[in-house]
């Protein structure tokens, strides 16, 4: 009977604490940020032309000499503009970023953007219909994929990459990929 007494006395308290933790976790999380379905999957197959020269065609092998980041962007996306300066900075620090231009208004607009704001990308993939992005499960721009040296997607970041989330989280993820490649 005394066992039950403890249960009756503290059971509700424990339940309350569990509920509190559960709800607090819910408060802090952003429901629009989805986990990618492709985590720990190899990069999907694709063919894409270069944004500057449509005669040049790339395939998924350009993402297999990682670790490499793949950034999904478009000129119609204001957040992409906001993060562009930081991507330039990352590129100047020697971090390879492949750009995937996603359903842009026109190729010329995208090229103008890169010419005026700078081009942080080692390779520029052009995806006017969003076909490649569909294979990656892209649901908005910007998105940044972290791909390891074997061409496996290890992490997806939704939203802009900035100084704060880079130093808080993303740099660590990238460093881990560099370590794994050794």
């Amino acid at each position, binding site marked *: 009977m005394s066992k039950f007494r403890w249960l009756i006395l503290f059971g509700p308290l424990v339940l309350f604490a569990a509920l509190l933790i559960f709800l607090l976790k819910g408060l802090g999380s952003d429901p*629009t940020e*989805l986990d990618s*379905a492709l985590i720990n999957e190899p990069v999907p197959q694709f063919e894409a032309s270069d944004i500057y020269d449509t005669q040049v065609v790339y395939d998924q092998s350009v993402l297999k000499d990682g670790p490499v980041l793949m950034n999904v962007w478009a000129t119609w996306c204001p957040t992409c503009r906001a993060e562009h300066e930081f991507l330039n900075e990352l590129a100047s620090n020697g971090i390879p970023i492949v750009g995937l231009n996603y*359903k842009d208004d026109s190729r010329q607009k995208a090229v103008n953007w890169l010419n005026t704001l700078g081009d942080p990308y080692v390779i520029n993939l052009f995806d006017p219909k969003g076909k490649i992005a*569909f294979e990656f*499960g892209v*649901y908005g721009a910007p998105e940044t994929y972290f791909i390891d040296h074997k061409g496996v997607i290890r992490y997806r970041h939704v939203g802009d990459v900035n100084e704060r989330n880079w130093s808080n989280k993303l740099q660590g993820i990238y460093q881990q990929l560099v370590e794994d490649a050794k």
Partner: protein
Amino acid sequence: MIRSLLLAFTAVLLLIPAAAAENENNYQFDNEQQRTTYQQLTKELRCPKCQNQNIGDSNAPLAEDMRDRSYQMLKEGQSREKIIEFMVARYGDFVHYQPPFTTVTSILWWGPLLIVIIGIGIAVSLTRKKKAAVELTQEERQRLQQLRKSGDE
């Protein structure tokens, strides 16, 4: 005259929604079965961009792409299951309104059952306690009989 005008007007009004639904996408289906499957898919696939709408309701460009892809795959002769599998492989379980049964989601099925079982358990234990309280000891029974006797007199 007025009556026939009114009648024509009503007929046009009635036809507008049907026409709008057909023109929204110039999809031509091979048969009724395919059309039904398409409509079913647009209802049960969820748009990842505008999270609480299915791809049929959503105007997001991504939902449009997903409708297009569903349509194309149907035309290629792929089944409903194959199309759902295709979408889930790219956009995750999130994209289908019917979550699969896994260890994580099992709580959705077992949770309510568990709560009902706990409830029945509590109810049973409470009624048992009441019964136990009514049971009297030998002495108490004798005393009760005495009291009853004295009451009769």
